[in-house]
């Protein structure tokens, strides 16, 4: 896991690892993507789930998506997501759509999980290539977002930039660590 975080940070120019972990941010692609025939979305991250009291959770790992409604922009992992949800584009919460490729670089957010009151480091990877998406859910939240001078927190940019295939498709939200 730390390998993965290292990979995020290896390209960070001028921003310390600490700064990256502190906050998260989504790309100001809002007005462009949202125009493309999609509905508007989440603004603030409002805690929506009460503390999880299902005892079963104490005995098993929580599968992705069982801790909230991953189709909604106020799902806790999406606190700094700017893009189409891959889970609504043929992919899943953490998987790109078949035919697309996960971005090799990503921006990160620090999101509070209301189920356990912990802050998590969430990697927002864009999926690159792929064949569009029909009426995708567009989410735009910018908790802790900063302009490109803090690149790792910047959500206005196409994170397919380091891939061979640079076409933006959708965005996944992957829990990669505790903040």
């Amino acid at each position, binding site marked *: *896991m730390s390998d*993965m975080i290292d990979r995020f940070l290896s390209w960070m120019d001028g921003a310390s690892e600490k700064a990256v972990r502190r906050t998260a941010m989504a790309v100001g692609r809002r007005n462009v993507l949202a125009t493309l*025939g999609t509905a508007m979305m989440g603004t603030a991250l409002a805690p929506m789930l009460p503390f*999880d009291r299902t*005892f*079963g*959770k*104490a*005995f098993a*790992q*929580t599968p*992705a998506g069982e*801790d909230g409604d991953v189709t909604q922009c106020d799902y806790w992992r999406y606190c700094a997501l700017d893009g189409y949800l891959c889970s*609504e*584009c*043929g*992919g*899943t919460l*953490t*998987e*790109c*759509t*078949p*035919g*697309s*490729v*996960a971005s090799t670089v*990503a921006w990160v957010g620090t999101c509070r*999980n209301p*189920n*356990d*009151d*912990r802050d*998590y480091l969430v*990697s927002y*990877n864009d*999926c690159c*290539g*792929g*064949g*569009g*998406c*029909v*009426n995708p859910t567009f989410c735009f939240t910018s908790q802790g977002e900063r302009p490109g001078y803090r690149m790792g927190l910047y959500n206005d940019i196409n994170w397919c930039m380091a891939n061979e295939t640079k*076409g933006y498709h959708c965005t*996944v939200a*992957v*829990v*990669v*660590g*505790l903040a």
Partner: protein
Amino acid sequence: MKKLLAILLSTTCALSVAPALSQEPPPPVPFETVGVKEAIDPGPNLFLLQQSWDGASTLQVFDAVDLTYKGGMGTGMMAQSVVSADGLTAYTMSTYLSRLTYGDTLMVLQAFDIATLTPTLEVVLPPKIAMVGPYEHLLQLSADERFALVMNATPAASVTIVDLVAGEVTAEIPTPGCWEIYPATTGLKWTMLCGDGTARTFVMNDAGTEVVSQEATPVFDADTDPLFVHAERGAGDELIFVSYGGSVYSISDAGTAPELLSTFSFADDLELPYAPGGYQLTAYNEANDVLFVTVHADPYDGSHKDGSTEIWVVDLANEALLYRLQPEEHGFISLEVTDGDRPVLYGFTEHSYTVHVFDIDLTAPFGIIMTETGVVDVPGGQVLAVRE
């Protein structure tokens, strides 16, 4: 059994929980890695072409049963598409402009593996392909699916033949005045409709390099009752067309020259005038030998592309209008239907850019029962195909 297991587990949990109810926090959410879903979920697929004239067109895939969106394949501008009979491969022909709104033109045929939504083949085409709104018969496959047949317009009409195995163009055949490609269901040949009211069959050699144009057969009058270019295959493998005026034309392409088998009107003798209208405006159900047709009331010169006010069910064996379906939605311009006894009818309506799914019970005692079972927004999606 699954239910029982759940009860057992919850009992076990309940028993073991009491001591765990301390202040200990739950373990953190497990850490994950980003991935790519390898393939779309299995099951029958509904295909829709979303055509763009200034950006990427896409061929979109939905679960044909519950309309779950599975993903899409990206291609060029003004694309046409066709899906192989087994539903495993999709083909598109489209145009790429080097500067999007201007610049050099590149026209290509692309093949995609549908399971992985991944391009598998690309063949550069002579830069003449017909750049048209979505129509089914501008890009077709030969019966053996070895060759793709591409409609060209410069505006002179011609057909480019692509060998899909070799991945190369084998010939470009002039087809003056003739339009759209109806491949025969056996053999290496296709038929076209021509502006002088004839139909004409073109026969290829095995290599797809040579084509013989057969004698033309008079079929229709392009002035007084032109045919829509959408065609279905009937019970006897004949091509079924409908005309602007509301007649069915059955044409056999079994021989070397087309043969007009029969014509009949299904729009006569009604209080109000009606006429067919739309694009992919008919769909044929084999088990019941019926043709679904999008029709609109009060037709006039120029209304032949108007969406439906009704969907009619035409009994082909008895050459008669069987039933007038009146779905709440108007504006259907494209239909597709499954083959079985109790067909599922898919319709795309331009009024709300939605695809509606209907269960059709043709055996109900008091007439057909049409039940809407699903709807999905597909802006601009149009040509429909369903593969099991």
